[in-house]
Each structure stands twice: as C-alpha cells, then as structure tokens.
C-alpha cells in the first residue's frame, strides 16, 4: 500500500519535473513582486537549482551548472508536497493570491459529494437489476436489464448528461420552469426547487452535509435536487458495469452445487436466492464497488464540465489549459490516496464476509 503510494508520487514527480522545464515547475511559487535574486533563492530552497548556480538567468537558460539532476530533486519535492506546499494556484481569476492547496480543498468536497452519491446510486440500481437479470435468465426482465446495463455501459457520459439537460431545460417544463436544475450546485429557478433555501454554515464544504449539520431541510432538499441529474449521469456507466458483473457472478453461483442442496432442503426460493446465493455473489461485487469509486473519482471530470459543477474535476480541465501542473498533481495524489484506502477497506469488508479468509 505504501509502496503503491510511493510509486504514484514517483510517476507524478517524473511527469511534472522530468518532462517539463524547471521554470514551469517553479511557476506556481513565483509571485509578481519577486526579483531575480529572490527567485533564485526560491529555486534553491525548492531544490530545483543548485547552490552553485550563479544567477536566475543562468537557470532560465538551463545552464548545466544550475540544474539539479532529476533524482536529486525528488526528496525535496516530496518534503514540500507532504507539507502541503504546492505554491499559488495558476487558475484564471485567482491571480496568484490563493494557494493551490487552499483552492483544491475548497472545491474537493463538491467532487466527493458527487462521487459518493454516484456510488450509492449505482449500488442501489445495479444490485437489484443484477439479481433480477440472473434469476430471470433469458426472459423479459433479463433482456430489459441487459439492455439497460449494456446501454449504460456504452453511452458516452458527457452526451448522456447533455441530453438530460436538453430534456429537462428545453422539453420538460413545469409552469415555465425546468423540472430539475441542470447547472451548478444550487439553482432556485427549477420547478422542484424551493425558492428560498436560506443559508448554511460551511462545516464540511459539502452542501448536503452542511445542510444536515445546520438542520436546514430546505437547503438539503435543494442540494439533493441539484445532485439528481449529475449523479444519474455519473452513475449510468457504472450501473451498466456493476449490473453485468453481478449478473454473471450471480448466474455462476446459481449453478453451484450448494444452491442445488439448498433447494433440495425445501427452502423457499426467496431464501435460496437472498441467503444462499447473494451472499456468495456479492463478494466479487464488493471489490468492484471499490474499483467503481475510483472510476467515479475520475469520471467526475466529465460530469462536472457538463453540469458546471464547482468541483476539482471541472477545475482540472481549466488547470490543464493554463498548464497548472501542481493542481493536477495534487488531484492525482489525493485520488490515488483515496483509492488505496478504499481498496484496503474493501479487503477488510471482504474478510469480514468471507469466513474462508482470516488474517
């Protein structure tokens, strides 16, 4: 686990420092008021320039006396990274006054909210769909669920999101307003929205959690309504994937001998499926749900762009156009950390459910 995280830092470090010139690595740390002397000092303290480097212009023209070999830069970079020293954000509109660290964590709760909502929706839809599909194998419910899952698996999420917007903004209208909001986190002009949700205290930065903690039901409802279309868009692909996996593992389990024995014991079909089969069939799906969360943390980028969601995903696209590599690197490291942690959690749950695994 630690090994994987170290590996990710190595890759991230190499992408940023190995493939880009040193000035661009320094760009986030430089403020407009710095003169060449302070810039050189900064470069030295960040481990980008050598002590013997004579001047800033020598570094800028990549003179070999100034350049620290790439492997020499890694440790000082890692130190900075772990200390949260990521420099100033290059995102437009912030004009170098807010740190990348701050900007990232301001936006991250929105992304996390979307990804968690997507995972929950996926599980809620995919598990019943997978079971129905497996138990009514090759009959109408199976064909319908197969169609939904294969369709969901094949549909481009960005297109699906845009079509939803089109439908709900242009064609499905209630009293002159769109039925559901399709833009941003809080929109008070839709038919289902409450017009005056009031304010909440920003405990976590996540609208839904903040609304709960501030005991503001109106705000909670509006946040939930605002989540509807983005969550559906985010979940549609993974619903397809999880349904297919659950269907095939369920069908595999239903063919097992112990299911035959359970039936021969005269147990009700309900008991056979939910007690005997499902317990075995969900085991692989738990691993998949872990992977799914990872998938959603990445897939969130598209949804945030389509729905103008103020999370890190949409920001990373902007960061890419202004080559704010630090923002992207921070995003990669945080998600990698979450994914590794999720995998660990999945292993623990797995061991709890499967008596054959004991540590």
């Amino acid at each position: 686990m630690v090994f994987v995280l170290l590996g990710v830092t190595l890759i991230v470090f190499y992408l940023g420092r190995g493939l880009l010139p040193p000035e661009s690595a320094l760009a986030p740390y430089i403020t407009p008021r710095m003169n060449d002397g302070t810039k050189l000092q900064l470069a030295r303290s960040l481990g980008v320039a050598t002590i013997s480097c004579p001047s800033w212009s020598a570094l800028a023209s990549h003179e070999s006396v100034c350049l620290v070999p790439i492997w020499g830069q890694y440790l000082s970079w890692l130190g900075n990274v772990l200390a949260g020293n990521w420099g100033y954000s290059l995102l437009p509109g912030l004009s170098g006054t807010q740190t990348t660290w701050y900007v990232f964590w301001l936006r991250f709760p929105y992304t996390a909210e979307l990804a968690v909502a997507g995972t929950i929706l996926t599980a809620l839809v995919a598990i019943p769909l997978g079971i129905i599909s497996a138990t009514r194998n090759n009959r109408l419910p199976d064909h319908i669920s197969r169609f939904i899952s294969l369709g969901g698996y094949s549909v481009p999420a960005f297109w699906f999101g845009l079509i939803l917007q089109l439908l709900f903004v242009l064609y499905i209208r209630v009293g002159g307003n769109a039925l559901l909001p399709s833009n941003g986190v809080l929109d008070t002009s839709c038919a289902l929205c409450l017009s005056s949700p009031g304010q909440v205290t920003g405990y976590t930065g996540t609208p839904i959690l903040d609304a709960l903690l501030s005991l503001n039901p109106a705000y909670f409802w509006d946040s939930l309504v605002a989540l509807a279309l983005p969550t559906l868009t985010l979940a549609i692909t993974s619903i397809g994937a999880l349904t297919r996996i659950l269907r095939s593992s369920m069908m595999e389990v239903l063919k097992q001998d112990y299911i035959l024995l359970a039936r021969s014991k005269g147990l009700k079909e309900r008991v056979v499926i939910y007690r005997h089969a499902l317990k075995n069939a969900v085991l692989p799906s738990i691993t998949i749900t872990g992977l799914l969360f990872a998938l959603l943390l990445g897939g969130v980028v598209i949804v945030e762009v389509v729905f103008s969601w103020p999370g890190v995903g949409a920001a990373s696209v902007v960061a890419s156009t202004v080559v704010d590599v630090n923002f992207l690197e921070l995003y990669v490291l945080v998600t990698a950390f979450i994914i590794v942690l999720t995998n660990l959690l999945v292993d623990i749950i797995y061991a709890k459910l499967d008596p054959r695994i004991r540590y």
Partner: protein
Amino acid sequence: MAVMSRALVTKDAVLEVKDLRVDFHTYAGDVKALNGVELTVKRGEILGLVGESGCGKSVTALSIVGLLPQNAEVVSGEILLEGRDLLRLTKEEMRLARLGEIAIVFQDPATYLNPVINIGAQITEILTSDRRRFQVELVSAGLKDFEGRVQGKPLSPALEKEGRRLRSITPSSRMRRGEVKRLAKLLALSYLRMVKLPDAARVFKMYPFELSGGMRQRAIIAMALARRPKLLLADEITTALDVTVQAQILRLLKELKEKIDASVVLITHDLAVVAELCDRAAVMYAGNIVEVAEVKELFANPLHPYTKGLLEAIPRPDSRSELKSIAGSVPDLLFPPTGCRFHPRCPFAFDRCPKVAPPLVEVSPGHLVACLLYGG
C-alpha cells in the same frame, strides 16, 4: 406395458416411478436421458440403483426431488410418492415435499455446502423455515434438553417456568421467534450427534472449509435427517470420500435408516456396496431399468446380459480367470440405439432386438428383467 406396470403395484410401496421419460434440450439436439424408467421402492427397504456413469441414475434422483436443470423436460411418466403424483404438484407443493418427505444427499460434500454459512445455520434454517412443520420435534428436543438439565436437582423458579412453558406448547400453538431459534439449535445439535460428529457444539459453529470430507458428508446427512424424510435418496454419497470413510458413512446410513424409519435409494456404481447394504437392487443401462431383483437373487442368478457383464467385470480374489469387460462403449444418448438400447453391445442380440424395446417383466417372483431373451 401399462398392464405390466399395474402388476407391479404393491401396497407397501413408498415410491413408484412409472414410464418416466426425460429429455435434455441441448444445442446439438435432444438427449433422451431417461427412456421409460420403472422403479418401485418398498417401505423400509434399501434399494440399490446400479449402473455406469451417464446411465441416468442421478437424473432419476433429480426427477424425483423435482430439481432437474432448466434444459431438462419430463416428457411423460408418473412419480408416485405414497400414491401422490409428484410431477403434478405445484412448485410450492413440491418444495414442501422436499422439506418434509423426500431428502437427497449428493455426491461431493466439498461443493454441496454453502461456503459462507456455518454448519449450524445450514441445519437450523430447515427447522425454522416453516412455522409449524417441525414444532413437535422442536418441543420434544427442548423437553429432552430440559430434563437433562434438571435431573435430580431441585427446580429453581426460572427452570420451573421454562418447563411449564415447554409442556404447554401444542402442535398448533404459536411460538416466539427467539424460542424457535433456541429449540432449533438444540434439535440441530441432536442431529449432529446422531450422525456421530464429534463435538457437535463446535461443529455447529464451524464453516464447511474447516471440516474434512467425511465430516461434511455427515453434516449433509444431518440436514437430510432433520427433515424426517419418508424417502432418502443417496446419490453416490461415498464416491468422493476416502475408502475408510466410505465404510463408516455407509454403516451410518444403514443405522440411521432404522432410527428414522425411512426407505433409502442408494445410487452407486459399486456392486460391492450393493451386496453389502441393499435389500434389493435395480440395474440401469442408458436410461432404462434393465433388471430388478433381491440382491442375493441378482448376484446368484443374473438374467440380463448387461447385469451378467457387470458381475463378470468384478475382480474376485478366488478366481484365476481373466477379468472380463463389456465390449463397446456407453451409447451417445443424442442418437440412442433403436429397440433395446443394449443391443449393439449384447453378445446375445438377435434380429428383434433393434426393433422392439423390451418391457420390464416379472420372470420369477420379485425378479424383473427387460430383455427379449426372457419373453415380452
């Protein structure tokens, strides 16, 4: 043929299978797995069902418990359990029959137990599944346990209350869920002891992967016992076990049969097992019962050429003659031979054999054979 099968009806029959035909639909065509099976199981007997693998023994057993795979179809026939045709039951009635009347034990104990549910729960779920079905047994297990605990000791008020409660339960009275659960555990433990599992309380909590093959098979037998079946189908129950364990399991089966007063169909390909345990034996070949007789009679006086071949293929320590085998191989049931299905391999085949399917006829009291050499 119908006339013949009526002649077979015996009053003390638990199970009668009449003209059972089962097809398997596959992409290559229909496999005619059972071709008019005729079988009678008498009350309290152990009937051996013998034949090579693929001859339809297991399919017969699965048809009886109503658990044929989805691509199988019962084309015709009757399966009468004490006169009631199992093939005409609804799904729910069939389930209840499996719960309380017919039990089956399968071949490989390694794969037939659910790996993620412990042994105890796999037994108690039977006892708690239908509200009143096992109430009498549950209460008597509770009483037995209660008497064991109070033996000779003065009763505390709590114990006295418990005893009164247990005695007051009638087969129709309602029980709380927790009470059912507690009694089910006691009853399950008694069954685990009945199949001679050492340290039943510990086994109760164990998962299948923690048990040996023989212990697993005992646990599965306990699950069969728990249903108090009238008919127990044992489908090659010892094939996957070690030789020493095999003997123990078979002895156990015979003992238990006496205890719970059930009839047993012992499905096997091992003639030695039949000789050792069974009262009567039925020989199967390619989806047909070809010969039925008391075990002694069958071994002393085999009539069907296939039975003769089978007996000659057994190695005997006292005989010096070369071991014989039956020429040819088991037919492809996608395109079974016409007439008597054994005729391509039969050394005594004559011109009518490929044309006429021989019915099962009684040639001497209790000895039935399906072969044109003996009339029909």
